[in-house]
């Protein structure tokens, strides 16, 4: 079984794979139907916060080192494969310094079915600003604030493709807790969430198994996914206990999700919605919007995509994301040049309160294997009633340089 967040265990796997990555990066394809590849990246980030932190111990500048080694071995012409993706970050915040096995699984493929056993990452959904239906993996919250990064999830996955779509079944034997920043970290609550501040509804805690199922298909312009999840919810619930302290509570939930995209010419229509039931909180949420693209503007190769999405969460102020009645609007610029230069500029605007979140993300390749990235997040006029109020001073600019193998 997976040892309970034992950093030394992760660290040793990690160092070994890093050695492999640096020493033996490369591909070996053999005529006997096997394929072996070491790849990955190492990188350096520098994150500068514009303001001093609200809480003691916080810094304003965070240099950081990141590494992601990957290994793939396929045999029987790819019908059997072993995949590994490790991840590690070294940061000024001891909690953000973390190691993870993003993927480590064996997969067997036969015609129209596949079976995967091990740690894996699964994505469900269609919208850009939030990922409501995506529930299999826990969010790697210290890695990225927007929830795009995920922790590896132990699973047995069976996938079966038929004429009426693909059916996926998941058995998830182990739950992984969300990790929150430490005392030196930014983008955190005033109190540090420690091991003892976490409670589970299930007596079995992390070992309570969860189950997932999804049917996905496409017909004409529509791509449709219908999903069901039963088990310990990935999103914690903040509550106060007797002595007035905050506690993170993971409840047992049932969730049904629907995601639909209609692709009509340059216009993509998207909707995701979930209904979640549990003994302590019922909720529903929706994200719906469109993405319209202008291609090859003035024969320059530039594409501009305009994205707008409406977000609603009926938990209101209790919602973890604070996206209870908001609109996301953004524009994506893809230059389609040799360096793959791209920008995404966007804002999330609260329709009832003053809160606005701005973000700019950009990337460009240098040479054949280096990539520079910039990311800026601004928290503007955060309403004191919202959860985001804790991080109102945490606007930052980050630059990254990664070397890919």
């Amino acid at each position, binding site marked *: 079984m997976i040892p309970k967040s034992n950093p030394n265990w992760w660290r040793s796997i990690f160092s070994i794979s890093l050695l492999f990555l640096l020493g033996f990066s490369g591909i070996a394809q053999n005529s006997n139907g096997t*394929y072996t*590849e070491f*790849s990955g*990246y190492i990188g350096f980030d520098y994150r500068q916060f514009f303001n001093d932190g609200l809480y003691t111990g916080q810094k304003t500048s965070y240099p950081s080192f990141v590494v992601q080694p990957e290994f*793939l071995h*396929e045999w029987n012409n*790819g019908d059997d*494969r072993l995949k590994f993706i490790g991840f590690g970050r070294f940061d000024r915040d001891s909690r953000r310094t973390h190691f993870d096995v993003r993927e480590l699984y064996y*997969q067997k*493929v036969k*015609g*129209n079915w*596949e079976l995967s056993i091990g740690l894996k*990452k*699964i*994505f469900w959904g*269609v919208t850009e600003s939030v990922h409501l239906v995506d529930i299999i993996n826990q969010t790697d919250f210290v890695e990225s604030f927007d929830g*795009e990064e995920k922790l590896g999830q132990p699973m047995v996955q069976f*996938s079966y*493709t038929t004429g009426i779509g*693909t059916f996926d079944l998941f058995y998830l034997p182990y739950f992984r807790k969300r990790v929150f920043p430490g005392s030196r970290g930014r983008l955190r609550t005033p109190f540090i969430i420690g091991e003892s501040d976490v409670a589970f509804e299930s007596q079995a805690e992390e070992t309570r198994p969860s189950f997932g199922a999804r049917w*996905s298909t*496409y017909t004409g312009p529509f*791509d449709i996914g219908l999903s069901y999840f039963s088990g310990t919810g990935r999103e914690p619930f903040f509550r106060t206990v007797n002595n007035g302290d905050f506690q993170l509570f993971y409840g047992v939930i049932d969730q049904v999700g629907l995601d639909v*995209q209609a*692709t009509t*010419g*340059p*216009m*993509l229509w998207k909707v995701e919605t979930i209904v979640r039931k549990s003994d302590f909180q019922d909720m529903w949420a929706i994200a719906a919007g469109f993405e319209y*693209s202008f*291609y*090859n503007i003035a*024969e320059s*190769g530039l*594409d501009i995509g305009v994205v707008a999405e409406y977000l609603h969460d009926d938990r209101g102020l209790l919602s973890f994301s604070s996206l209870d009645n908001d609109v996301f609007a953004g524009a994506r610029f893809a230059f*389609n*040049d*040799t*360096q*793959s230069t791209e920008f995404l500029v966007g804002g999330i605007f609260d329709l009832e309160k003053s809160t606005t979140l701005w973000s700019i993300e950009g990337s460009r*390749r240098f040479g*054949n*294997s280096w*990539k520079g990235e910039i990311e800026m997040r601004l928290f503007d006029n955060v309403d004191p009633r919202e959860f985001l109020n804790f991080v109102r001073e945490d606007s930052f600019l980050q630059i990254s340089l*990664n070397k*890919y*193998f």
Partner: protein
Amino acid sequence: MRRTILTLIGVAVAGFAMAQSPEEKGLEIAKAADKYDEGFGSSSTKLTMILTNKQGQESTRYMSNQTLELTTDGDKSLIVFNSPRDVKGTATLTYTHKEGSDDQWLYLPAVKRVKRISSDNKSGPFMGSEFAYEDLSSQEVEKYTYKFIKEEAINGVDTYVIERDPVDPKSGYARQLVWYNKENYRLEKMEFYDRKNALLKTLEYSNYNVYKEKHWRAGEMNMVNHQTGKKTKLIFEDYDFGLDLTADDFSQNSLRRASR
């Protein structure tokens, strides 16, 4: 008397054949070329793309491609990028249709996401190259209207020169000139004219090999953009026609797996 009638019929047939319009002859050649390559079933190949800018600096990308032939509808294809390394594992799955828009999905390995994308981007550059998306998509007969121009000998081979106009208004071209080899209908050369009808690009095919007796595939394609001075060379290696791929190899699960 009988001979006279036969002669008359002969003259009439000859006259009818001569009356075939350039449009009819162009379409006939395009159909014959399509027919000639029918029956390849499925194939896979490795691609090297060398981009050269105006200053002569080169950058190289590696990809692999799988194609499944369909006769009732357009072909299915899967392209996987292996380099540049930051986009390694990015893959596209395309279901071409003889009429209407193609269906296309993109797999982003970093976020494990399969995303249906618009296939409206015809004229935009493919991976920063001088090839537009429409230059690399499956060349279905129905996607153009045709006109026979002339016969010509180029590079020591006899060719038919056909003008073809894209049916899709989103195409970046007013017209294209295509040189078909008279013997086996393989393409020898193409010229692309932009929306203003000015010569934009020339594509030359070379290093042909024949597979399964009649399926000709170029080992090299050289595209030169006359307006920007940039060039892109595509090198095709390790063609394999013996994999017997099926529709199962072109599903969304296959797209995820192809991304290695």
